[in-house]
């Protein structure tokens, strides 16, 4: 379980990006962080991975304070991170980067399997360079393959749908569903995509650097993607998952 307590982030000389956010990511759940552009979602995701460090507040992973731990330590503690815009490397092949993600060299069968899982033909890709010659969709799939190999207990995906085609997107959804069903992993996905929201266990709305609404998909999805409060089942029970909840 990841507990985020009173987290704030204000880069020096810049406006405050995160404002006293507190939330809990339960184990084994698929949690989607959504909200308007510029609301602080990616910053929050990077805080979880240790790429950005908070100005104040704390992060507790399974009872251990990880607030001051760097990205390497957090990776070793089981936090994975898939970049919104995957990084390209001159001289690294797909095989190289996936071997690094795996922590040891993959067998040919393992390499083929993970590439097929993200919809890439192994023969055509495993020895290609991870450089600018790969399209946005191709490199995104390789990024996802790396995350699958990491076998992290908590993985943050920053807008996994960005830059990929519909077919890739559908297979990505299958990957998330399979991950949730076959492994006891926690997935935190930053997304605006209705389809991703529809498979969430919990949805949290981040806007203007604050945690707005949060709740189970059954409540949140209609509010965000449906007819607002009119379609919210909580209304019938006199409950509300709005900002003040």
């Amino acid at each position: 379980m990841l507990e985020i307590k009173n987290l704030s982030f204000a880069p020096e000389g810049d406006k405050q990006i995160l404002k006293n956010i507190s939330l809990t990511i339960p184990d084994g759940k698929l949690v989607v962080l959504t909200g308007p552009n510029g609301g602080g979602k990616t910053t929050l995701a990077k805080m979880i991975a240790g790429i950005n460090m908070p100005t104040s507040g704390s992060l507790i992973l399974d009872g251990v304070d990880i607030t001051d731990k760097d990205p390497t330590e957090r990776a070793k503690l089981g936090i994975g991170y898939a970049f919104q815009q995957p990084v390209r490397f001159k001289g690294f092949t797909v095989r190289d980067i996936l071997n690094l993600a795996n922590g040891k060299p993959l067998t040919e069968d393992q390499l083929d399997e993970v590439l097929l899982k993200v919809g890439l033909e192994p023969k055509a890709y495993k020895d290609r360079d991870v450089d600018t010659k790969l399209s946005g969709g191709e490199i995104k799939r390789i990024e996802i393959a790396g995350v699958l190999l990491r076998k992290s207990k908590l993985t943050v995906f920053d807008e996994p749908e960005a830059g990929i085609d519909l077919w890739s997107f559908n297979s990505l959804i299958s990957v998330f569903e399979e991950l949730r069903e076959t492994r006891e992993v926690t997935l935190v996905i930053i997304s605006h995509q209705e389809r991703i929201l529809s498979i969430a266990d919990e949805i949290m709305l981040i806007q203007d650097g604050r945690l707005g609404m949060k709740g189970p998909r059954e409540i949140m999805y209609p509010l965000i993607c449906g007819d607002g409060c009119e379609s919210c089942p909580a209304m019938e029970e006199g409950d509300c998952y709005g900002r003040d909840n």
Partner: protein
Amino acid sequence: MEEIIRDQQAAGTAAESSVANAAADMAAKIFGGEAQPNAMAQAARVLKGAPEEAPAEQPAEPAKPVFEETPVDVDSVTAKLLETVANFNGTGFCGAFNIRSNGKSLGRQSTEHIHIDTKTDNPGLDIHIAPGTRGEEVYIPACVTKAGYDDLVYNDFFVGKDADVVIVAGCGIHTETGEPARHNGIHRFFLEEGARVLYVEKHVGTGAKGPKKVIDPQTECFLKDGAYLEMDTSQLGGVSSSVRKTRATLDGKSTLVIKERLLTDDDETAETFFEVELNGEGSSVNLMSRSVARGNSHQAYQSNIIGNTICYGHSECDAILAENGRVDAAPKLSANSEDAQLIHEAAIGKIAGEQIMKLRTLGLTEEEAEAAIINGFLK
């Protein structure tokens, strides 16, 4: 023979061993890369508007000749250098070879198709590769292990029509005392029609840090119609100073590919000059230089691709800076024909922070991430 080598290795100092291991590690990190099929002749054809050539029927590939190993008796330091620059297995070489150490030949062998002869006008060798020779390798490494020695050698390679061979050269310098040592290898390549050569040249310096270890290779290449020369050169570290000059003249539809990998550290300097003249219709050159400048080292890269006809030239110079390393790059393109298509790409900079961060999210430390990026870049 194996016992002699083992005894000599056992007698080597711990310092020698550690330096040799470092060199071997460096070599393992940097070595690699195989000849790749070249698409530039096709690009030139497209540029010219010529119809696509139907693929010629390929004759059955003859079996690669197998040669018995010929023993070579060398000391442990030379053995380690040879291992680094010429894949020496510690006992001997197969096929055609000449081992040069401190200006003398420690062993030589010709084969039926490859003749290695001593030059009569200068120190060095004439290597004649018969037309149609296929699948053979020639090893021509040189070592300097004597402090104060200034080695100068002229090697000429005459590669017959339709031959297809691999030439492994390279130089290792090892000095322990304060005196400098130098190797100046002047190589000329004459490729006849349709000849194909993969030329692998590795340079390394080992031993005490103080003395200057200088390697100044000069290469001239003359390619006739349909010839293909791929030069895979790498400087593996420990060379105090190097000045590399490469000139090539391409006739007909010939192709030159140069892959240079360079790593400098401490106060080392490395200068590279390439000049390629494209005279043949459909000729092409691809220059790729990747380098890392660390410590207080300095590198200078200059290239000039001269297109005199319908031709294709591409040069790519990428450098990573670390610590106080400095790199100058001055690529030049000279188009003397409106049909010449010449391209240059260059990028110099430190390792991108996002690359380090990506690898850290995979569990690597900052130092491990930087090393992995540099190793991958120079691979």
